[in-house]
């Protein structure tokens, strides 16, 4: 028997606003209670008092290299069990869907690892949904490789064939980061990846000029990998990829999305505000997390590197090069809200904006926007009717209180938020 659930006494993030409304779930989907009332003439089987919590869609991470000690790029570790283990642990960060990311590696690594990380629907039992793989590199610019190993980088002299030789198959891949200035990328590779293999092409680790970036977008690219990092800095006579946030030759209907690591380390809050003010609808929060995410300070593996975690920073052992973040996506949402708050000069409306607009925009950057990048915004990243029932409870400071996947409780911070404790007597 499929039960009808009603979550009440809550505030929802819906239609770009915070609204007082109930959330109705059945069969793991969010449904329209008005239709049920008039057509089926039944009431909820089970009702939950949400104690005034804020309910948002579950967070979606498009770039995460590992977490809780596990490294997605490691062929030794790669297994379905490991992926599910991380998927379950990520629910404590409010993440209900993610794209495991693989850094520049050797062809044998790709050919071993890519077939293992299959797309997978999330559940309370198995954790967050796996939305495909993000292959970041190795077709990137040497000068902007960041933490990627030089000896693993490759060029695309023979166009798409070089990519196929390197990766093997694109079957489980959703997103690819590449440098568009490499040979044949704009003319051959990007159009083929988009049209033939249905991938989201992301520009990053690149020395591309704005002109090259524009041509890449026109060729089908739609995302920028961690804006500001691993690309030319904005220059007023040569805006580089950063200039894509305002660029005019693109059709008005083309939204360029851009990942942003808002962990207070990789991007100055002024830069966050700058990007947000210029192009708020394209902002996608990503963690670019290293395997140390979720772990205390120490030394860990990533790809073929040793990394050192100290406080909020993760660097390549022996250097000062940042190699990814250790802020959870939940923390990134909080940091983004703080960045917007810090930039509000109008003292009279600051409280009102902070309690509504900044909350909505920060949450949408981790839910609606990443879903839009993957063209899944009707199913994920939203509390609209018909969407998958992946949602989270948050308190006023946007700390995660509980995480639900496909309508079932996957994680809760304390017993107080366990659904057994929230359940009220059925009104039948």
């Amino acid at each position, binding site marked *: 028997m499929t039960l009808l659930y009603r979550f009440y006494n809550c505030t929802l993030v819906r239609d770009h606003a915070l609204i007082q409304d*109930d959330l109705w779930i059945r069969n793991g989907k969010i449904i*329209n*209670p*008005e*239709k049920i*009332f*008039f*057509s*089926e*003439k*039944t*009431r909820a089987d089970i009702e939950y008092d949400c104690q005034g919590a804020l309910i948002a869609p579950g967070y979606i991470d498009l770039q995460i290299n590992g977490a809780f000690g596990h490294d997605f790029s490691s062929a030794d570790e790669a297994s379905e069990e490991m992926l599910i283990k991380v998927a379950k642990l990520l629910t404590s960060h409010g993440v209900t869907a993610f794209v495991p990311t693989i850094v520049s590696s050797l062809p044998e690594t790709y050919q071993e690892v890519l077939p293992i990380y299959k797309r997978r629907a999330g559940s309370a039992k198995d954790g967050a949904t796996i939305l495909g793989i993000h292959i970041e590199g190795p077709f990137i610019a040497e000068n902007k490789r960041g933490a990627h190993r030089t000896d693993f980088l490759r060029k695309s002299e023979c166009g798409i064939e070089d990519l196929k030789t390197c990766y093997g198959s694109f079957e489980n891949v959703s997103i690819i980061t590449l440098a568009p200035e490499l040979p044949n990328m704009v003319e051959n590779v990007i159009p083929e990846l988009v049209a033939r293999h249905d991938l989201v092409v992301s520009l990053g680790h690149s020395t591309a000029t704005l002109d090259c970036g524009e041509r890449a977008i026109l060729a089908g690219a739609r995302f920028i990998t961690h804006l500001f990092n691993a690309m030319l800095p904005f220059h007023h006579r040569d805006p580089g990829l950063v200039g894509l946030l305002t660029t005019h030759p693109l059709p008005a209907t083309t939204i360029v999305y851009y990942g942003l690591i808002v962990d207070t380390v990789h991007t100055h809050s002024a830069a966050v505000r700058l990007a947000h003010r210029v192009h708020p609808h394209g902002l996608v929060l990503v963690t670019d997390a290293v395997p140390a995410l979720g772990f205390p300070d120490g030394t860990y593996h990533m790809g073929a590197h040793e990394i050192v975690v100290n406080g909020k920073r993760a660097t390549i052992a022996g250097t000062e090069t940042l190699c990814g973040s250790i802020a959870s996506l939940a923390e990134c949402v909080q940091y983004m809200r703080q960045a917007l708050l810090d930039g509000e000069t109008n003292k009279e409306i600051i409280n009102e904006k902070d309690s509504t607009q900044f909350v909505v925009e920060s949450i949408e950057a981790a839910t609606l926007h990443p879903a839009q990048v993957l063209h899944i915004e009707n199913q994920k990243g939203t509390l609209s009717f018909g969407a998958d029932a992946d949602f989270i409870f948050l308190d006023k400071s946007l700390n995660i209180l509980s995480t639900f996947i496909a309508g079932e409780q996957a994680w809760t911070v304390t017993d107080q938020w366990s659904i057994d404790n929230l359940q009220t007597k059925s*009104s039948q």
Partner: protein
Amino acid sequence: MRLIITKDYSTVSEWGAKYIKKRINDFKPSADRLFILGLPTGSTPIGTYKKLVEFVQAKELSFKYVVTFNMDEYVGLPKDHPESYHSFMWKHLFKHIDIDPNNVHILNGSAPDLIAECEQYEQAIRDHGGIDLFVGGIGPDGHIAFNEPGSSLASRTRIKSLAQDTIAANARFFNNDINQVPKCALTVGVGTVMDAREVMVLISGASKAIALHMAIEAGMNHMWTVSALQNHPKFLCICDEDATLELKVKTVKYFKGLMGVHNKSIEEDNNSS
């Protein structure tokens, strides 16, 4: 007729809601003896519905044993259209209260056979033993439900063509595009409302002043269909100061003088008749 004159829209809403609450609670409805309530839509009852919701949330009122019959619904609008009267009632009342969805009756403007739909609605009211309290508003042209000027004062539930004034007044809900406004509606008749054991009409604002004057100070006339209620044994009319602007000073003074008695009828203790 009892005419209650209060200060403003907010007091009209509160008075109306308290009266409904008292009627239902005094009735002590149960599974064997349901309270049958007729309900309107439009801007006037929104404040009353808000107050009723507050009563339910404060556990002072329950709709568990209440059956509702709405007055009207547009023809051709799907139930889930944001401007349908189904959507209106869901949004302003039903989603917030503990009513059983099986006890809710709203005319179906998308029914395959509209005439049969209207006949079945009349039958459903009869099957429930008639309506205990019918709540309504009036239009600026004095219509009750969609019984536009010229409607028979003996009319039953049927399809009505909407008057040009009504369509124009409703355009604001349809993107100000008059072509999108439905041209027909299903409505209870004047006779259907008159059959109720008690009728309460809420009237607020200067735009309703002439209609109120025609309804209670002029004769019964099918051009001002709410005037049929002059013939009802239990007609309660709640209005605010602005709505009395076209009434005789004498009428207003007379009914204001009776407010002491009238206020008793919404007191919580059951002293009033």
